[in-house]
């Protein structure tokens, strides 16, 4: 008797349900682990941070992200660690690993989405759109992408307008200066990408990746501006230390003491703040 009533009720519910407005976001992942600083920044920029349950070590912006549990370094994920926060979606930058860990997470029927990496305008916009699609908020993503695109265009115009006719300004990205040895950013790096976005030219594009540079190569590169990450502690390089380096001192940048320091994640992350970084760099290039 009671069973029959139950069944009838269920049937009625099944018939009525499709007629009711679908509860919004019922299908979208609600417990997200965000891996990679730029991906996390995009989630925050989209205003979807309430759905984050954990982050990785490289996710440090905005500061409130520090309150989330840290599941470790992107390439050294611990499968059980990730499972312990009960995620429904793992959203990650390119290169998450080790492969065994990723395999296990997929096996545990957790959605695993890798966002492609890249160091140009298109890559930033693609990342934003892709993240917003996965989160089920494509309109917000389109809005953010067009804002960032407009800001990038503005940044690109700064140098063009103020110094038309003169050769493009050369920028040397200095990653570190441990023991007086200059580590510079060559081609195919995030540093190279941001220099292009700002309308400059990488002064040392002859090699890939970040490599130590000999003194002669620095003089040969003849940068007009030195670009660095803003850092504290032991890794901070003061203007005195930088421009007392004999090779750097003899470059155009050394003569005019032109150096720009920008927060590392903002400068090299290729996320929503890339336009801001490009604008700052462009002003430095145009003004110097």
């Amino acid at each position: 008797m009671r069973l029959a009533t139950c069944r009838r009720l269920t049937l009625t519910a099944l018939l009525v349900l499709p007629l009711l407005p679908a509860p919004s976001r019922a299908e979208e992942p609600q417990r997200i682990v965000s891996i990679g600083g730029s991906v996390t920044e995009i989630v925050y920029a989209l205003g979807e941070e309430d759905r984050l349950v954990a982050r990785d070590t490289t996710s440090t912006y905005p500061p409130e992200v520090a309150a989330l549990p840290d599941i470790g370094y992107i390439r050294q994920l611990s499968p059980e660690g990730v499972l312990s926060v009960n995620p429904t979606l793992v959203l990650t930058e390119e290169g998450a690993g080790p492969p065994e860990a990723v395999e296990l997470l997929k096996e545990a029927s957790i959605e695993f989405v890798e966002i492609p990496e890249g160091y140009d305008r298109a890559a930033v916009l693609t990342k934003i759109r892709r993240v917003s699609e996965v989160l089920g908020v494509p309109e917000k993503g389109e809005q953010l992408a067009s804002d960032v695109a407009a800001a990038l265009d503005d940044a690109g115009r700064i140098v063009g307008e103020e110094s038309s006719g003169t050769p493009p300004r050369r920028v040397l990205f200095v990653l570190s200066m441990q023991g007086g040895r200059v580590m510079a950013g060559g081609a195919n790096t995030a540093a190279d990408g941001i220099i292009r976005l700002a309308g400059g030219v990488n002064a040392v594009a002859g090699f890939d990746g970040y490599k130590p540079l000999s003194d002669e190569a620095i003089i040969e590169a003849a940068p007009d501006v030195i670009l660095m990450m803003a850092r504290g502690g032991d890794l901070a390089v003061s203007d005195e230390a930088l421009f007392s380096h004999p090779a750097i001192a003899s470059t155009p940048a050394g003569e005019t003491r032109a150096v720009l320091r920008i927060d590392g994640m903002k400068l090299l992350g290729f996320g929503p703040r890339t336009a801001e970084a490009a604008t700052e760099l462009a002003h430095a290039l145009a003004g110097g």
Partner: protein
Amino acid sequence: MVAIHPEGHLVGDRRGLARRTSWVLAALLLVAAYASLAVGASGVSLPAALADLLAGREIDARARIILLDIRLPRLLTGMMVGASLAVAGAVLQGLFRNPLADPGLVGVSAGAGLGAISAIVLGGLLPGGLAGLLGSALMPVLAFAGSWLSVSLLYVIATRGGHTSVATMLLGGIALAAMTAAFSGLLIYMADDQQLRDLTFWSLGSLAGASWSKTLAAAPLMLAALLTAPALSRGLNALALGEAAAHHLGIPVQRLKTGAIVVVAAAVGAATAISGGIGFVGIVVPHLLRLATGPDHRALLVNSGVLGASLLLLADVVSRSIVAPSELPIGIVTAVIGGPFFLWILLRRRGSLEI
């Protein structure tokens, strides 16, 4: 550690003591194995899962993956790696009659390191088909090939007229390690930032990548080495008197040396290939046991294997729970816990060191 008995330094027959120690160590291994299955970042409970299993209920998918696909292969890998490193250390110390001998001395670690670095830095250069075929197995395979290659080379260098000179092997090992380090340095220069981080993590060791496929691939080698090792114990005991004396005692010295080197290369090569560079176990475990139960290899080799396995499992439990949900590389844990502990034992028992 439970294995240290106050009467351990007394001169005399300590076989009874060694046997009792074996029982204590076996119990320790059981405790460590249970902890390794029961402790982890997620709240999955082993007793609850076992109760479900016994009652014939379905264990939920998440718990099954965590217990069977994450913790269980990790337990087996940890046991085999810990035992391999400790036994290899004990064999090498016996072979070289040198308390400082560890796998680094015969070029195993350096060779494995070069293999791993090559896989990390040059792996991307492989033609697509080959890279796809090897996949994530590339690094363990190259690490293992590297360790075998360098040990074989060293063995050839040190062997003349059917006689392997242990002294040449020691010195040759240092030269070979320097050359390997130079190649590794070259590759490190070529590496990008991400690869450098991978390298750093590899050198600190981890059991985090333990999966069934990796465990099963490396297991036969480590098991074969571990099961063969006890057969070396009489020979190593005789060798403690010197090569000539061992020869006169009827020990086939050359065969003993070859056997010992093959065992070490197989055990350490396979262990390093799947877990990276885990230091300290190979040198400290055999010394602890020598202090406790004496230098007789018959007991030492077996006990080293059991204690090495237990210690590595316990270190792994710490490494995965101390910064959960992240994980601390296990090499840091073994060094932080083991270094001071070993020093304390040394200082306490300075007078009774027997190698």
